[in-house]
């Protein structure tokens, strides 16, 4: 199976450890992982902030880069939801209300719509890919820590990943999963909302942080580093001592990681595993 990693611009730039963890994990599970180097960004920030034309241009670029793969895996619920849920809406509604919107996009509106129909059904969030495509819920991970899981809005209500992430976490050896009160409530990130409505965003995060602390967890896990950047930034500012980790980083960890992955700097990809994969 030709699997393309869509690492996302945020992970690429700020959280490369998450990308490396996905590579480690997928290779351990026998996948051949490619990283199409033409990739940049899905366009979510632009579309959701009201810059549709720029967003559509980035979407078109994404569709070109990721055409022809059996699966595209993104370690981000919101980026995967952008592609799968919002690209079709861009193709539909926006083309109708703004006839000129696709003028500078190659293939025009109909070409865009065709590419959307072809590419987007094969775009998966990491947990969907593991559970639905590979059919695994035990990925052979070891992580002896007390962890609570924040489901993130776009995974929960956009992609509807349901309990896939927690099924994966429950099968991690040594991991104690504690339920997060008010888990389904938004953390307050919301992209540019975090800056445009900084006060409300901070108030939402304050409640999220209080809920996290009430669990007594060492680690807050989520499948989206944008939410984790927001919550983690608050946890760090408040010196709570709770650290944040992406789902991929926990699932990539095994007994071979001496001391376990205690920081966001995840151990480099295991050469032995890579050797097998090649």
């Amino acid at each position, binding site marked *: 199976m030709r699997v393309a990693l869509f*690492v996302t*611009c945020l992970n*690429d*730039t*700020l*959280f*490369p*450890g998450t*990308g*490396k963890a996905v*590579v*480690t994990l997928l290779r351990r599970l026998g996948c051949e*992982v490619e*990283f199409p*180097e*033409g*990739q*940049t*960004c899905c366009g979510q*920030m*632009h*579309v*959701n*902030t*009201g*810059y*549709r034309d*720029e967003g559509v*241009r*980035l979407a078109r*670029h994404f569709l070109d880069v990721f055409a022809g793969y059996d699966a595209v895996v993104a370690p981000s619920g919101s980026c995967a939801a952008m592609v799968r849920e919002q690209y079709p*809406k861009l193709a539909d*509604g*926006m083309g109708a*209300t703004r006839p000129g919107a696709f003028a500078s996009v190659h293939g025009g509106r109909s070409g865009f719509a065709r590419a959307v129909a072809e590419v987007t059904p094969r775009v998966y969030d990491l947990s969907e890919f593991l559970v639905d495509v590979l059919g695994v819920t035990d990925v052979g991970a070891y992580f002896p820590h007390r962890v609570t899981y924040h489901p993130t*809005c776009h995974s929960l209500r956009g992609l509807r990943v349901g309990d896939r992430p927690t099924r994966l976490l429950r099968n991690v050896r040594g991991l104690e999963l504690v339920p997060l009160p008010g888990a*389904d409530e*938004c953390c307050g*990130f*919301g992209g540019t*909302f975090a800056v445009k*409505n*900084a*006060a*409300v*965003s*901070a108030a*939402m*995060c304050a409640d999220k942080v209080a809920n996290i602390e009430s669990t007594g967890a060492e680690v807050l896990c989520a499948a989206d580093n944008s939410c984790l*950047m*927001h919550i*983690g*930034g*608050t946890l760090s*500012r408040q010196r709570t001592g709770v650290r944040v980790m992406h789902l991929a980083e926990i699932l990539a960890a095994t007994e071979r990681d001496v001391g376990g992955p205690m920081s*966001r700097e995840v151990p*480099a990809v295991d*050469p032995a595993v*890579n050797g097998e994969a*090649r």
Partner: protein
Amino acid sequence: MSAGPGTFLGMPAFPKNAEEALEDSQLRFNLRKATHTIRARRQAVVDELPDWAALRAAGKAIKDETLRNLDRYLIQAEEAVTRAGGHVHWAADAAEANRIVIDLVRATGETQVVKVKSMATQEIGLNEALESEGITANETDLAELIVQLGDDWPSHILVPAIHRNRSEIREIFLEHMGEWGRPAPADLTDDPKALAEAARLHLRERFLSAKVGVSGANFLIAETGTLVVLESEGNGRMCLTMPRTLISVVGIEKVLPTWRDLEVFLQLLPRSSTGERMNPYTSTWTGAVEGQEFHLVLLDNGRTKVLADEIGRQALRCIRCSACLNVCPVYERVGGHAYGSVYPGPIGAILTPQLRGTASELDASLPYASSLCGACYDVCPVAIDIPEVLVHLRAKTPHAPAERLGLKVAAWTLDRPSRLRRAQRLASRLRGLLPRRRLPGPGAAWTDTRDVPAVPEESFRDWWNRTEGGAR
């Protein structure tokens, strides 16, 4: 505080209002308690119906079909109401609707009207318009009474006084009931039963002597000309039944094609709104009944403008249940006043800018008053994709020049992987210089409460290239 006609004129933008509201710990406490109570109740009665999803799909489609053929249904409704002895008036805007109602009240010779809570009459500022012509409008819904006595703004579609708790309500009753009529008993407690009893006694004389009633309607059935009002307290029944003259102001989007369609909406609305299997009272009437004189005022006031927007028009499906307010994390923390409109919360954030336009700073900021978490869409009984409309309206609203420049630069960088790589390498080189606790400029909005992550030495793409995907 003085109420502008249906708008809270001159209010600053949402983020500023929100910041002030967030400081009010009593408000935060009241809202949290109330919204969490109603969320649980709604969920329980929705889960009870095995066919909720099918009802929701039907509700959405019925509304869409109505809007698609609205001209036909409006004419049909007009004919049916007229045939049943009612009078139908058409109002293109708020001023015309107010004029029609004032003239109708004048014709009766009365100077007092009793009112059932109605979003449409709040939207057009009817009470203020009546007052300026020497006619007193008596609000009869308990929450509206609390708002009216407290010279306050409504802050919720269903429960306009949701921002007040029981002890605040007690104080308002003790202080102000006497100014309007029968005073509250001096030994009034803050027991909700006692508060409801005080309201009952205060309003009863006015109901029993009322000659003119003014209402809105939840639904208007085109096929039969039937109006439908859902309520809880019985004040609606009082206002609809006791007066000799009844005037109903109804938005044109409230039409439903057939009587049968009620089988869907009488299940969707109460469960979504008060979290009950059914609200205590629903009244339906067709034309002039039981010797009453009946006037129907059909109101446009911007609705046809909303209808012309292919994406935005879904907001006209709204049945004003307020489920979206009750689950919204933003509304829960700032309350309704920050939205500066009689329509607060997620539905307000898409309805107000469409009805009023985005000329004011406040209205232009409303589409951004959301983290796009999607909880509103999940609970909407007519499946209004509020996040979709928010994003659509953001694209239609003008942007601040500095932001525009920033996002243009970002888009330019992201257009080519080579540019992104150069930007990443620059950031990595400067990583030691970037403060993690205090960013300059607009970044300060982030670092006021949050640290920024450390920039890594190497981006993922550089790592992939250097190690051939981790092979080296």
